[in-house]
């Protein structure tokens, strides 16, 4: 067998061997004591690396100017070293901010993190001058808020951490620093509140992040797919958000939060399917309005997955379900359409998806044009041309609008995808097909877990107390306990056991 495998994949072993030899050489180099020469070799062909030299003081330094802040650079480098005598150099370098670099690995990582690496008389030191350019804190575009806080996460993990720390001023808020990506070496912080988060969950999450094997991770949404319980499922299993208030509330609920550098999306775990229908805004409204909005979203879910499917099912197989008066309208509307309802619906659904995708990819102003062109051309002209019926336009439009009511963009996209499955089943087997499709969806959902807890919590396993904060937004005085899914050691919201 192994001979056959070698014959089928010639040269693979050789390649591996070369790669291994290279990496051993590289490893050996990284273990050495850092000197200017070795460091310059390591960063060979990096045109953006700055090398400054003061021969009179025997001082050399390597750094990336674009990772350094002007003020920081002036404070740590320009001012201390500007006017000192060569014999004072060692005294300055003995200050605590100048940390000795003991091997090339830490020196190179330090430079990549925005430190200046100083070389003096055979010794190497690192000093942080890091202030990478970031965009300013602004409102999240995917999760807009009407009357809640407007600050959203940005791409810098340190700014994101500061936003979270400003909301939760507690020594119990812990942040474990981890790293993912063989090449990108991205910083990932695992946050939890000690005493509220389940210790097993924290360990499990830490283990999963440490075991990630990938070269580069670009975004929190990407990391989620690498560590969640069922990467092949269409549903998101950890909730991602760009809203700082949402993350603070998840932490306070006993969940674990992960933020990573370079991504404005933080995610919390464990999450349940129903949680994706809640928005932070619900808590900033009076409870009755919050409850109504939340219920509206569940109705929107039903509309999204069933409206077009029901249209197809009824107009293909179950005409008897339509009352007489309405039947006349529907038959008139469908009389000019030459296609079976399934084709007609698929045509419209795909068009709507095209419009949505085009609108998302284009700049806002052109996106609006696309909306108008799509609305008029697809809506009006398709009916006049006899390609589709009025009623279907209403069904497709309502289900598309309803899909956007779901606050989580990732969940909304998943639901839009499963809608096509329902549509096909309705076209093939009518109402029975719809019911079968719903059964399959729920069978799939019942098998899903989020950080080893049931994804269908609090319906299965049932927990009626959790319903107060999942299906409705009960008055705050009613919501006494943290979500059961977190398996928190401190159930009651009002106290923390010492």
């Amino acid at each position: 067998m192994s001979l056959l495998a070698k014959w089928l994949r010639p040269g693979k072993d050789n390649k591996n061997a070369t790669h291994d030899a290279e990496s051993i050489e590289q490893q050996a180099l990284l273990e050495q004591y850092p000197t200017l020469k070795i460091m310059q070799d390591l960063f060979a062909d990096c045109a953006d690396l700055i090398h400054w030299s003061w021969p009179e003081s025997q001082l050399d330094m390597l750094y990336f100017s674009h990772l350094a802040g002007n003020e920081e650079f002036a404070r740590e480098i320009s001012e201390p070293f500007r006017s000192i005598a060569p014999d004072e150099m060692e005294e300055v370098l003995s200050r605590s901010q100048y940390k000795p670099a003991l091997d090339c690995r830490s020196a190179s990582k330090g430079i990549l993190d925005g430190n200046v690496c100083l070389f003096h008389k055979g010794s190497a030191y690192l000093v942080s001058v890091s202030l990478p350019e970031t965009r300013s804190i602004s409102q999240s575009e995917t999760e807009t808020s009407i009357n809640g806080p407007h600050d959203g996460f940005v791409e810098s993990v340190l700014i994101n951490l500061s936003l979270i720390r400003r909301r939760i001023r507690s020594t119990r808020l812990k942040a474990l620093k981890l790293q993912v990506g063989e090449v990108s070496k991205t910083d990932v912080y695992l946050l939890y509140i000690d005493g509220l988060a389940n210790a097993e969950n924290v360990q499990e999450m830490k283990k999963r992040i440490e075991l990630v094997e990938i070269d580069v991770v670009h975004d929190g949404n990407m990391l989620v797919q690498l560590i969640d319980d069922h990467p092949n499922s269409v549903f998101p299993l950890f909730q991602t958000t760009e809203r700082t208030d949402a993350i603070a509330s998840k932490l306070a609920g006993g969940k674990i939060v992960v933020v990573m550098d370079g991504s404005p999306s933080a995610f919390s775990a464990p999450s349940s399917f129903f949680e994706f229908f809640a928005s932070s805004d619900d808590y900033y409204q009076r409870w009755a309005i919050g409850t109504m909005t939340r219920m509206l979203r569940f109705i929107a879910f039903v509309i999204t997955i069933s409206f077009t499917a029901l249209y197809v099912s009824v107009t293909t197989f179950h005409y008897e379900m339509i009352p007489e008066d309405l039947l006349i309208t529907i038959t008139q509307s469908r009389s000019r359409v030459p296609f079976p309802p399934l084709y007609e619906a698929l045509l419209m659904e795909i068009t709507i998806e095209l419009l949505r995708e085009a609108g998302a990819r284009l700049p806002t102003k052109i996106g609006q044009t696309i909306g108008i062109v799509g609305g008029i051309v697809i809506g009006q002209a398709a009916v006049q041309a006899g390609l589709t019926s009025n009623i279907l336009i209403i069904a497709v439009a309502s289900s598309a609008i309803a899909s956007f009511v779901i606050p989580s963009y990732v969940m909304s996209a998943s639901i839009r995808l499963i809608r096509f499955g329902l549509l096909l089943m309705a076209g093939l087997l009518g109402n029975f097909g719809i019911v079968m499709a719903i059964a399959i969806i729920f069978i799939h959902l019942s098998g899903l877990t989020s950080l080893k807890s049931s994804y269908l919590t609090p319906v299965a396993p049932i927990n009626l107390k959790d319903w107060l904060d999942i299906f409705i937004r009960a008055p705050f005085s009613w919501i006494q306990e943290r979500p059961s899914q977190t398996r928190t050691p401190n159930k009651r919201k009002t106290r923390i056991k010492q």
Partner: protein
Amino acid sequence: MKEKLYPVHIAILVYMIQTGVVVFSLPRIMAEAFGYNGWLMVPVFTLIAALNIGLIAVVYRLSQGRSVFEILERSLTKIGAYPLYLVLIVVWSLLGCMVAKHYVYIFQTMAFPTMHPMLFKLLIDIVAFLLLIKGVYNISKATMSFFVLTAWMGLLLLFFVPDFEFARLTPFLLKGGTETIRGGLNGYTAFLGYELTLLLFPYVNTKKGFIKAVHAGNLLTGVLYTLYAFVAFGFYSLGQLTAFRFPMLDMLSYIRLPFVERIETLFFGFFFFTVLITIVMYIWASTEALNRMFPKAESKLLAAVLLIVIYGVSWLPDTLSKVEIWLKWLGYGQVIIAIGLPVFLILILLILRRKEQGHA
């Protein structure tokens, strides 16, 4: 962490196993067997089922939560228990399979009459297989969500309130019934399903509350069945009830909303969820028994083989009436198992206990 079943899961599971398509013909069966006010016998059946659950409770207490298969094998030896397993496998798997086919045939009286019933049956078996391989804990989770999806249908009874007349109930009590014993037995098969809890012992979370949960599930079934039958008896006359094959289905077709009517195909569709759980749990029970016979075999493979075999068997009855005859006989068999198996287990456990005490 091994997940276990909580009492509420068990209660809902019992209710969902018990509730099936029989509910659509239950008022007719009661009318035929017991005549006027036959619905009064539904609570009596609930009570009989509760007594039967009492037997299961004794088994549970004596066995201290051990698996019934373990108990059987300890006294009968492995080989000795095999014939019993075989009987259980045949009855349970065929029941699951015939329940599915029954559902298909009833559905085809309303829609898709020209489509081959075995195609529908195949689809149901595939869905059942998908659920079956997820294990009993996930089955119970799916059951819970299906329960939530179907529980609201009880509210449909409100539609019949304006047309409900007490006069139709008449002052006669249980008069005018024919074939009381056989009809009654048929009616009792609507309550079957609770006996599968015998196999749930090893999967239960807490020792307390298990039997209470089974009773609660049975009670929920009993209350809902009584309500359905009561409303049907006040909605239709006795003559109508005995004339309709599926009176509840006809009642569903009576519901009209401003924008939709004749919704029985959709609502009957929703009953698929409860039927699916009945099917899956019977097949699951058979697979459990089969697993004892072939402990080294992969349970997913056993489930697949079993489903293929019974799919083949389900070609045999080719009309609704024939399926009903199969169901009737399998139902009788199941009644015997429901009562006989716990009694047999109690005897074995008592003998084992005496032996152990003798040794001590």
